[in-house]
C-alpha cells in the first residue's frame, strides 16, 4: 500500500496506485537516463522535471524516491554522486521554502545559485583545480538547466492535477496567480539565457574546430621549424588568439611522454571522427598534433585559447544571468506582495460584519487595495446598518416590554364572559390564542363598539381591579365573525396616575372657582351661630333664664354647626385625590348634592336652576364623588356659557336657565344638563372632550373639566356627549349610564 501526501495537506491511501506509481517511476527513470548533449559542454537531463512533479503530486517521500531514481544515471555519466545529492537537497529545499502558492522555478533558481553552484565549485576543483571560467560555465549550465526544468514542471502543474483521492488526472480549473507568473517569467528568462548559452557554446566549438586548421597552417609556416629542438617548449603567437600557445617538437613515438608536460592527455591530428570534440573535457585535455615529417610532430596546446573562449562565453551569459537573478528577486517581491494582498483581502472578508474597520489595511497592489477599500466601505455600511437594526430591535423590544405591546388579530369581545379574545401575533412563537378579562365597568362600552370598522378604546383589566389600563386599537371589523381582523393592545402604565393628577388639578381649579359659593355657604351658618350665641348671652345677662329659650338657642347653634360641617364635608370630599371607590347610589342623589352645592353660584348669577328627577331609579354602583363632580362641572359650564351669552349679546338682563333632568330609557339612565347659554363654540365642537380644550378666559378654565368627565364616564362604562340645543339657544350635556344586566 502506498501512502501519499497530497499537496493540499491531507493524506490518502489508494491500493491501486501501487502499480501506477511504479510504472510512472520506471518511465521517469528511463526518460531521465537520456543524456542529451545540446552543445559541447551542455548536457540535458530530465530528472528534475520528474522528481519535482512527483513531489508536487504525491508528496515528499515520492519526490525523494523519484529524485534518487531519476538522477542515478548521472553516476555513469559523470562518475560522481554530486547530482544525486543535489537532487535530494533540491527536493528538501522545495519542501521547505516552496509553499502551495510559490513556483518550483524560483526556489530552484536560488537553490542552484547558492547550493548547486557552490557544490560545483568545490567538486570540480577536486582533485585538481579547474580554470574558474570553466567551473562557472558549468555552474551556469546547471542553474539554467534545472531552473528551466522546474519552470516546465510549474507549467505542467498549472495545467494538470492528479487527484489521488479518486485516482484520476484532471485539468486544473483555478490557477495560482503567483505560481503562474513565476513559472512564465522563469521559463522565458531562463529559456532565453539557455538558448544564448547553447548558441555561444556551439560557436565556441566551431571556432575550436576551425582553430585546428589555423594551428596546422601556422606550424607549417614557421620559418625555422626544422631547427626546433625536440622536447623544448616554444610559444606560438597567432592572429586572433590572445594567449600564446605552448608547443613542442617531439618524436611521434614519444608523443605520449611529452604530452603531459603541455597539459595534454589527448592528441588530435585532425584525422579522428571528432566525437570527442563534443565534450568540454576533451578541449581542456587535448593538444593538436601537427606532423612535420621525418617521424617528428609538433604538439600545440590550445588550453589557454579554450579558456579564453569560455571566458568570452561567460562574459556574454553573465548579464543574462544577472537579469534572471533580478527577475527572480522581483518575482519573490511580487509573490510577497501577492501574499500580503491576499492576506489583507482575506482579513477583510473574514472580518465582514464583525465591526467597524477604522484602521484600513493597505494592500500592495492598487487593484487589491481598491477592492479592500470598497469592501471595507461595504463592511462599515453593513455594520452601521446592522447596528441600527439591532438598536431598533432592542428599542422595539424595550418598547414592547415597557408598554406590553401586543399585536393581535381576530379581536372579539365576549360579552358573556366579559373577556377580550384575540390571537396574539408573536414574531418568534407565531400566532396563538389569548384573552384578557375586561373590567365590568367597561364591558358595556365594548358592546356599544360592535360594528364600528375601527375602534380605539381605553379599558381596565380584570373584574375587580381597575389599576391596570389598556388601550386597544382594532381595525377592519368583520361582521360575520363579529371581530376585528387586526389591531394592537398597549398597556397604559401611567394612565391612571395621570388621570388622577389631572382630575385633582381640575378639582382644585373648580374649587377656586367656587370659593364664593363655599364662602357664602359657610358664612351663613356662622352668622346665625354668632347671632344665636349673642342672643343667648343677652338672655343670660338679662336674668331671665328661660330654659326653653336657652335650649332653643343652643339647638340652633348645634344645627348651624352641623350645617357648616356638612358643607365642609362635601367640599373636602372634592379636594381628595385618593381612590374614588364605587358605592351603591342613586344618581338622583348625586344630582341633589351637586345642585345643593352649586345653587348659590346659580343664584348669584341670576340663573334659574330646575331639576326634574323621577321618584325612583335603580341603584347603581358608581363612584359618587366622580359623578357629582361631573354634574358640578356641567352646572359650572352652563353658568359660564350663560354669562358668555350675556356678554356676547350685551344684555345682562337675560335670565339664565339650567335644567337638570334624569330619566330612565330602557336599560340606560340618561342625565341631561341643558342651559340657555351661548352654545358650543364652533372651534371646540369636535374636540370638546380633549384635554386643555377651553374657550374660557385665562385663569378661569383649565380645559380639563370635560376631559376628566369623559374619563370618569369611560371608567363607569358610560358615555358623555354635548350638543347645541336644536330649537333654542344653549347646549345640552348628556350622560348615559348603562344598567348592568338584570339591574
Amino acid at each position, binding site marked *: 500500500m502506498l501512502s501519499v501526501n497530497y499537496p493540499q495537506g491531507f493524506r490518502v491511501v489508494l491500493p491501486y496506485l501501487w502499480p501506477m506509481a511504479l510504472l510512472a517511476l520506471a518511465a521517469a527513470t528511463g526518460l531521465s537516463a537520456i543524456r542529451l548533449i545540446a552543445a559541447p559542454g551542455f548536457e540535458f537531463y530530465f530528472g528534475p522535471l520528474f522528481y519535482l512533479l512527483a513531489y508536487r503530486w504525491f508528496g515528499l517521500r515520492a519526490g525523494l524516491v523519484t529524485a534518487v531514481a531519476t538522477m542515478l544515471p548521472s553516476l555513469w555519466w559523470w562518475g560522481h554522486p554530486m547530482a544525486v545529492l543535489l537532487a535530494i537537497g533540491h527536493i528538501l529545499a522545495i519542501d521547505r521554502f516552496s509553499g502551495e502558492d510559490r513556483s518550483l522555478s524560483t526556489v530552484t533558481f536560488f537553490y542552484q545559485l547558492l547550493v548547486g553552484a557552490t557544490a560545483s565549485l568545490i567538486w570540480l576543483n577536486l582533485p585538481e583545480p579547474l580554470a574558474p571560467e570553466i567551473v562557472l560555465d558549468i555552474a551556469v549550465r546547471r542553474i539554467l538547466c534545472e531552473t528551466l526544468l522546474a519552470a516546465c514542471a510549474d507549467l505542467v502543474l498549472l495545467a494538470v492535477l492528479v487527484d489521488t483521492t479518486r485516482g484520476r488526472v484532471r485539468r486544473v480549473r483555478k490557477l495560482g496567480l503567483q505560481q503562474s507568473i513565476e513559472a512564465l517569467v522563469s521559463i522565458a528568462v531562463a529559456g532565453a539565457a539557455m538558448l544564448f548559452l547553447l548558441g555561444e557554446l556551439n560557436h565556441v566549438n566551431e571556432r575550436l574546430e576551425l582553430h585546428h586548421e589555423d594551428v596546422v597552417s601556422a606550424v607549417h609556416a614557421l620559418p625555422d621549424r626544422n631547427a626546433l629542438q625536440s622536447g623544448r617548449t616554444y610559444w606560438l603567437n597567432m592572429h586572433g588568439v590572445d594567449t600564446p600557445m605552448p608547443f613542442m617538437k617531439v618524436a611521434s613515438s614519444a608523443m605520449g611522454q611529452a604530452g603531459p608536460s603541455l597539459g595534454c592527455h589527448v592528441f588530435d591530428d585532425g584525422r579522428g571522427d571528432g566525437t570527442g570534440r563534443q565534450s568540454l573535457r576533451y578541449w581542456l585535455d587535448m593538444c593538436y598534433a601537427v606532423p612535420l615529417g621525418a617521424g617528428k610532430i609538433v604538439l600545440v596546446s590550445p588550453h589557454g585559447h579554450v579558456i579564453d573562449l569560455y571566458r568570452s562565453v561567460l562574459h556574454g551569459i553573465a548579464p543574462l544571468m544577472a537579469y534572471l537573478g533580478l527577475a527572480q528577486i522581483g518575482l519573490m517581491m511580487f509573490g510577497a506582495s501577492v501574499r500580503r494582498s491576499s492576506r489583507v483581502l482575506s482579513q477583510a472578508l473574514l472580518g465582514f460584519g464583525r465591526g467597524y474597520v477604522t484602521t484600513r489595511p493597505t494592500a500592495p497592489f492598487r487593484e487589491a487595495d481598491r477592492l479592500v477599500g470598497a469592501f471595507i466601505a461595504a463592511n462599515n455600511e453593513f455594520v452601521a446598518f446592522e447596528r441600527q437594526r439591532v438598536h431598533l430591535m432592542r428599542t422595539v423590544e424595550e418598547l414592547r416590554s415597557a408598554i406590553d405591546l401586543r399585536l393581535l388579530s381576530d379581536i372579539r369581545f365576549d360579552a358573556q364572559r366579559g373577556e377580550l379574545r384575540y390571537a396574539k401575533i408573536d414574531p418568534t412563537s407565531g400566532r396563538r390564542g389569548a384573552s384578557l378579562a375586561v373590567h365590568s365597568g367597561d364591558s358595556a362600552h365594548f358592546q356599544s363598539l360592535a360594528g364600528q370598522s375601527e375602534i380605539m378604546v381605553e379599558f381596565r383589566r380584570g373584574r375587580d381591579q381597575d389599576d391596570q389600563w389598556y388601550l386597544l386599537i382594532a381595525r377592519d371589523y368583520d361582521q360575520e365573525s363579529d371581530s376585528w381582523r387586526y389591531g394592537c393592545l398597549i398597556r397604559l402604565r401611567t394612565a391612571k396616575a395621570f388621570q388622577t393628577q389631572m382630575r385633582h388639578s381640575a378639582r382644585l381649579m373648580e374649587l377656586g372657582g367656587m370659593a364664593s359659593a363655599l364662602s357664602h355657604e359657610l358664612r351663613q351658618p356662622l352668622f346665625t351661630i354668632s347671632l344665636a350665641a349673642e*342672643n343667648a348671652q343677652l338672655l343670660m345677662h338679662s336674668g331671665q333664664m328661660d330654659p326653653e329659650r336657652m335650649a332653643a338657642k343652643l339647638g340652633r347653634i348645634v344645627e348651624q354647626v352641623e350645617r357648616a360641617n356638612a358643607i365642609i364635608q362635601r367640599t373636602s370630599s372634592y379636594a381628595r385625590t385618593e381612590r374614588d371607590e364605587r358605592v351603591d347610589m342613586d344618581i338622583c342623589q348625586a344630582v341633589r348634592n351637586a345642585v345643593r352645592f352649586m345653587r348659590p353660584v346659580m343664584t348669584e348669577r341670576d340663573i334659574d336652576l330646575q331639576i326634574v328627577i323621577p321618584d325612583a331609579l335603580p341603584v347603581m354602583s358608581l363612584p359618587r364623588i366622580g359623578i357629582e363632580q361631573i354634574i358640578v362641572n356641567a352646572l359650572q359650564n352652563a353658568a359660564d356659557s350663560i354669562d358668555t351669552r350675556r356678554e356676547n349679546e350685551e344684555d345682562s338682563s337675560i335670565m339664565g336657565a339650567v335644567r337638570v333632568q334624569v330619566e330612565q330609557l330602557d336599560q340606560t339612565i340618561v342625565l341631561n344638563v341643558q342651559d340657555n347659554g351661548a352654545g358650543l363654540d364652533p372651534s371646540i365642537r369636535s374636540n370638546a372632550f380633549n384635554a386643555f380644550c377651553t374657550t374660557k378666559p385665562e385663569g378661569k378654565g383649565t380645559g380639563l373639566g370635560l376631559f376628566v368627565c369623559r374619563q370618569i364616564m369611560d371608567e363607569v362604562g358610560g358615555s358623555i356627549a354635548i350638543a347645541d340645543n336644536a330649537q333654542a339657544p344653549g347646549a345640552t350635556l348628556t350622560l348615559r349610564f348603562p344598567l348592568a344586566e338584570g339591574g
Partner: protein
Amino acid sequence: MHTPNILIVEDDDALRGELVELLRALGAMAIGVPDGTQAMHAWKLQPFDLVLCDYKLRAESGLDVLRALGDLAAAPAAGRCYLMTAHVDLTAAAQRDIASITTGLLHKPIDAKTLRRIVADAAEAVRC
C-alpha cells in the same frame, strides 16, 4: 333716644329670627321678612329707619328690593339701608351698584359690636 324701626329682609329663616331677636334686645323695633314682596308690604304698613337686606335672596336681588323700597319712599337717604352678604368676591360693577344705593355693605357674619353701632346710628338719623 329715638327707638329705630328696622326692617330685615333675609331668606334664611334661622338667621332672620336670631337677627330680629338680637336687634330687639339692642332696643330696636325689628321686623323680619323673607323676600322683597313682604318687605314692600311691611314698608307700606310703616316706614323704617333702617333696612338690613340680604344681597342674594332666594329669588331676587337685595339691590332690586332696596331700589323698590327707595322708589316707594320717593327719596331714600344715605345712611339708612345696608346690604348684607356672605360673598367675598363681588365684582367691581356690583360694588359700584351697591355703593350708589346703600349706606354700606356688611359682610356676614356681622359682629354684635357693628350691629350696635348701626342701631345707634339709625336712632340718631332721620328716617330713610
